[in-house]
């Protein structure tokens, strides 16, 4: 078996910004003293004249991004998810969301896989927060290939976009040569009619692994990657609900307000089936190596397999 290439989507983010810098000459990138960590530092190195460090002041950074966008330039504002979506929430709502300004928010270090920094920096609430803002697009890419394509798609899209990236290096499973990113469209990665596993971010690869294990045990799982959490691809979700009769969602985020909630809200309207959620179960995280934390909090293929086995018993 060939070695699996691993890469953190924050790296993909920084590289994509730098790679796209000449194609988008009016692109401005802002950061809040985390350029080395969010990887916007890669863009800074390529285009120092278009990079501005706002210091440790995320509220102001979001407002500055709004002002820049109002003049017609493209702008990315970057920080950790905790501060971009959490600390600056109200500025994102009122100064970016309400006027529907063309600001892209590059939020890295999302979820529990932040690791050793612990609970204060492990943001498991950002998707929930951003989902409540009318007109906000939310993208949570699953690997390097998808992350890079998503950055370009966000730049070509007019309107506010929240992009979620991770700190941990994760397997690259999409094929760079053939991958096409379609904003708002779910991707069916595996066919199956016994259960649908709907995953996002780093949990997509875990869902694929889980499906392999389940297949060996005679359960054929459909696997769907939802990279765009808002607007949600309701068609692919409702179709999966109707054709499989039970759904397991998987996300590195709280079970409150994230992908699992969005999927459950959707199927109750089109095709009510049981929805079992794999996510952070309304608890704070703690310090530790990311890989260990993912296992401890059940954000892994093994737990998806266990949840699927429970879920299929709920089928009518």
């Amino acid at each position: 078996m060939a070695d699996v290439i691993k890469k953190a989507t924050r790296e993909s983010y920084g590289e994509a910004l730098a790679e796209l810098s000449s194609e988008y000459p009016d692109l401005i990138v802002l950061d809040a003293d985390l350029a080395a960590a969010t990887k916007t530092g890669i863009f800074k190195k390529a285009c120092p004249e278009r990079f501005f460090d706002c210091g440790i002041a995320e509220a102001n950074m979001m407002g500055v991004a709004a002002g820049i966008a109002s003049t017609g330039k493209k702008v990315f504002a970057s920080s950790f998810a905790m501060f971009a979506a959490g600390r600056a929430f109200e500025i994102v709502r009122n100064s970016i969301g309400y006027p529907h300004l063309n600001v892209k928010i590059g939020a890295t270090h999302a979820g529990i896989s932040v690791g050793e920094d612990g609970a204060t920096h492990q943001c498991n609430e950002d998707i929930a927060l951003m989902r409540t803002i009318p007109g906000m697009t939310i993208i949570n890419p699953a690997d390097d290939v998808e992350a890079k394509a998503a950055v370009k798609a966000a730049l070509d899209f007019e309107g506010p976009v929240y992009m979620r990236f991770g700190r941990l290096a994760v397997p690259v499973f999409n094929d760079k040569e053939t991958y096409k990113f379609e904003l708002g469209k779910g991707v069916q990665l595996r066919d199956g009619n016994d259960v649908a596993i709907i995953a996002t971010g780093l949990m997509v690869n875990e869902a694929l692994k889980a499906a392999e294990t389940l297949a060996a045990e005679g359960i054929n799982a459909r696997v769907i990657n939802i990279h765009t959490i808002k607007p949600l691809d309701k068609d692919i979700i409702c179709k999966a609900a109707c054709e499989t009769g039970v759904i397991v969602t998987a996300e590195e985020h709280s079970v409150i307000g994230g992908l699992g909630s969005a999927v459950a809200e959707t199927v109750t309207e089109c095709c009510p089936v049981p929805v079992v959620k794999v996510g952070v179960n309304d608890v704070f995280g703690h310090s530790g190596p990311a890989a260990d934390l993912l296992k401890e909090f059940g954000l892994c293929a093994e737990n998806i397999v266990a949840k699927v086995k429970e879920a299929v018993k709920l089928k009518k």
Partner: protein
Amino acid sequence: MDQTLKKQLQITACKVRMGIIEGVFNAKSGHPGGSLSIADTLTYLYFHKMHVDPKSPKMADRDRLVLSKGHTAPALYSVLAQRGFFEVDELKTLRKIGSRLQGHPDMKHIPGVDMSTGSLGQGISAACGMALSGKISSAGYKVYAVLGDGEIEEGQVWEAAMFAAHNKLDNLVAVVDNNGLQIDGKITEVCSPMPITDKFEAFGWHVITMNAHDFDDIERAFDEAEKINGQPVVIVQKSVKGKGVSFMEDQVGWHGSAPNAEQYEQAMSELKAQLEKLEG
């Protein structure tokens, strides 16, 4: 200042004040006190200083104004209406269902509004972004941001103050409307932001003080602001909350309440008398 211009500005400011009262009275809610205190400054900016075109409100090289103290939208709307961005009669629709004139400025729908504001402390950051963008493109436009003296209690204002000085945004002029009153009382008694001038100076701004109700002094202040290079400018204007309506002047109660029919009549007759005197 040229005497004819001064007279004209005084007349316009008086009409702007009438529009404020008209709007707030019809809405049966709103913020007349801080709207009246900023009326002269906004009149000066939109009728003399700023490069704007009511026929082309989104013109790329226009000067921009962010009403960071967004609750005083009645003043901005009244000035924009007088300047021809929309009909003066529309002021009567303020805060009503179906009206473009939202309780706080909405840039998506109101011609001439450069930024949606209302949540205090946020507008100044957006103004910084506009000014930075202008610098990046070597565009010649100026950005004005109008803040309340209570508003500067918001921490975000000082994040923005740091950012503007660090990036040498000399195309940015902030105005702090120092009328001394906020909802809960005197700013010095609620949670004092004083001394305002020293704070901005310490943050690296060029500080100018101004009498907010004297057009000669207003012109002096903005002319001085224009000459400053390499740092942002703040004009701390000493103003009277409720200026122009006798019973509203310096009264904290008029921060956010509308006049009743009797009070409306009195306010309008006072302003009409001032207008007649000016038009003499």
